[in-house]
């Protein structure tokens, strides 16, 4: 666990270094850039509020992707599910008038169901026809993109701006004046509570319920799960639907919270950023919350930075994209850490041998390490007898 956290921090660090290098190469001062970037997200209560608001959809998409990963699915369909959930909620907000508590309950439910139904199709295809969810989710993203484009354009057009829907009145959205004024009129809204509650519920489902255990079992080993009497098909569909519902909520917080209208002709960037959030947060709900707040800071601060310096705001996007790359290639960091650990162990073993040559030293084999090759390189040379006996045990 600690090591995974360390790897995440190293990935962030490498991403920031890449950003700094990019600023240097293009003739900007990286230190100045980073100072303004962080100040832009934290300098005042309003900016902190905006950081939290920017992070809200990211928490939910990150949670969606993390939930998928934990149950053995790669939910790359978050942008489409965001759009589907957001569209359902937007239509409801624009057409129905209800007292506020009922309204809030309804839009949260509707956004969740919209996203869940959108993810139901890839789930069904995976369960019944064994179609890989990555491919079908990508297709579903673009189907959602075009449906939203034409539904908004034809039915809920904004008179002046052709790339937006009609604006929703604030009282029908997640916006809350008391919260906004608490944070110096920032655009923070009730979405953050939705996100935090979702984080808690998902954490409980994954770690404390037999339902979550079943989902994870299917993710770890389909055949073993089936043998144990778990319905694999049902669980695959349910996992994707829950993940899709979370992404649908992200759509709600983005389109009827942070904004009060729907943008068309653009794939929501929060969807794919969810993959970064999840990876950086080690695919845990709390990790997703923390890493989303970090990304929210980068996104919220970039505007201030590009006003104060002449660094283009896209530096924040570049840093985040680079962090995903480093998170994907974290094996190189893992190998490096393993080598360091092996060196330490070697030193320790040498010292122990000097004092008490008879005491055997148990090898610390990290089960988290995916690359068995690297593990063997590091451990076989050091502890040949133990390793051999372990292998024998395994063989029996």
């Amino acid at each position, binding site marked *: 666990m600690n090591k995974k956290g360390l790897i995440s921090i190293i990935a962030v660090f490498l991403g920031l270094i890449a950003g700094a290098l*990019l600023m240097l190469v*293009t*003739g900007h001062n990286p230190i100045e850039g980073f100072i303004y970037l962080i100040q832009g997200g934290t300098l005042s209560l309003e900016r902190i509020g905006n950081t939290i608001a920017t992070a809200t959809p990211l928490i939910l998409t990150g949670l969606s992707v993390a939930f998928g990963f934990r149950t053995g699915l*790669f939910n*790359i369909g978050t942008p489409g599910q965001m759009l589907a959930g957001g569209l359902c909620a937007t239509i409801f907000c624009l057409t129905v008038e209800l007292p506020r508590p009922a309204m809030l309950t309804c839009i949260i439910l509707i956004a969740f169901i919209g996203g869940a139904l959108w993810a139901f*199709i890839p789930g069904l*295809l995976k369960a019944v*026809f*064994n*179609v*890989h969810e*990555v*491919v*079908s989710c*990508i*297709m*579903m*993203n*673009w*189907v959602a*993109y*075009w*449906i939203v*484009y*034409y*539904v908004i354009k034809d039915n809920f057009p904004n008179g002046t701006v052709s790339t937006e829907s009609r604006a929703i009145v604030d009282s029908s959205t997640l916006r809350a004046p008391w919260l906004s004024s608490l944070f110096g009129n920032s655009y923070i809204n009730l979405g953050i509570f939705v996100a935090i509650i979702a984080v808690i519920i998902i954490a409980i489902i994954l770690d404390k319920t037999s339902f979550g255990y079943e989902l994870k079992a299917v993710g770890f080993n389909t055949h073993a799960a089936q043998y144990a009497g778990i319905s694999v098909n049902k669980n695959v569909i349910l996992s994707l639907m829950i993940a899709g519902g979370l992404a649908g909520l992200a759509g709600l917080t983005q389109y009827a919270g942070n904004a009060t209208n729907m943008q068309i002709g653009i*794939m929501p960037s929060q969807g*794919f*950023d969810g*993959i*970064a959030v999840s*990876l950086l947060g080690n695919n845990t709900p709390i990790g997703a919350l923390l890493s989303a707040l970090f990304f929210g800071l980068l996104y919220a601060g970039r505007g201030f930075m590009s006003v104060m310096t002449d660094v*283009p705001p*896209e*530096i924040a*996007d*570049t840093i*985040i*994209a*680079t962090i*995903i*790359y480093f*998170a*994907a*290639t974290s*094996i*190189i960091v893992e190998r490096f850490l393993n080598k360091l650990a092996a060196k330490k162990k070697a030193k320790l073993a040498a010292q122990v041998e000097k004092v008490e040559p008879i005491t055997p030293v148990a090898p610390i084999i990290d089960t988290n390490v*995916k*690359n*068995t*090759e690297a593990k063997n390189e590091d451990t076989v040379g050091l502890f040949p007898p133990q390793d051999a006996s372990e292998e024998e045990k395994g063989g029996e």
Partner: protein
Amino acid sequence: MWAIIEQIFPYAIAYTIPLLIVALGGLFCERSGIVNIGLEGLMIMGSFASGITIYFLQASFPGQTWTIFVGLLVALIVGALFSLLHAFASINLQADQTISGTAINLIAVALTVFLARNITGSGNIVLRTTLAKKNITILKDIPVIGALFFTNTYSTTWIVLAILIVFTFLLYKTSFGLRLRACGEHPHAADAAGVNVGRMRYIGVLLSGAFAGLGGGIFLVTFSGEFNGSVSGFGFLALAALIFGQWKPLGILGSTLFFGFASTISNVSQVIPELATIPPVYLKIFPYIVTLIALVIFSKSSQAPKAAGETFDPGKR
């Protein structure tokens, strides 16, 4: 009806060609065993590279056609170089290919707009002149075909078709092609037969980068004329075409034509009264829906490379 077909045909071809070359790149990548969902990002990179090259060359040599071809060459090279990131991650580091591909997509969008802002001051690069359409002298007078294929064509169309023929031959009729396909079907068998799996996969990824870069360049000089940090989902559409074409060169030629026509009709349907009855949304989502249907139909007999997406670990049997 014939008049309509004659009218939209050149547009449909212009739409098809970048899709075709990108899907062909994806084909070589997946046939070598590496899934590449970073095609969109590689296209954006190529589009940016050709845009910036042509932008500066046209400033010094206004109106010269060769500047556009230099731009396309640069797009090809930059695309290949950028795809090295994906190759390194998925071959040397055995990273998750989907995550690496996603990273490629996101890096490309962010980095190109960042650089464009630094270089030109805005996120956009507008070309002064794009590639001109030409009629081919004698062939255009052939009755039916002449009007469809040889009037108002881009020279890039013929370049891409030539590439398609050469690389189809390479894939099926040479030992290189056989080795490449073997790496995508059964890398351990290929390895045992003495094929360097890593090198073959590097070639596959580099080809996808080069072709996607070229596709991005062609998209810019024929289709859009302006770089703005996006290629409107062409990379993902090419991915759909690759699947719908069942990972075969002729299959992707058919599927890209099919998608090209569907998209073109949806773009012009409001202008042409006969087509206005079909809501454009159906035509827009059509390629993705038929791909989903194809995935279902072919789920039992899929022609997908068996080892695509799996990392090759020579120690694992």
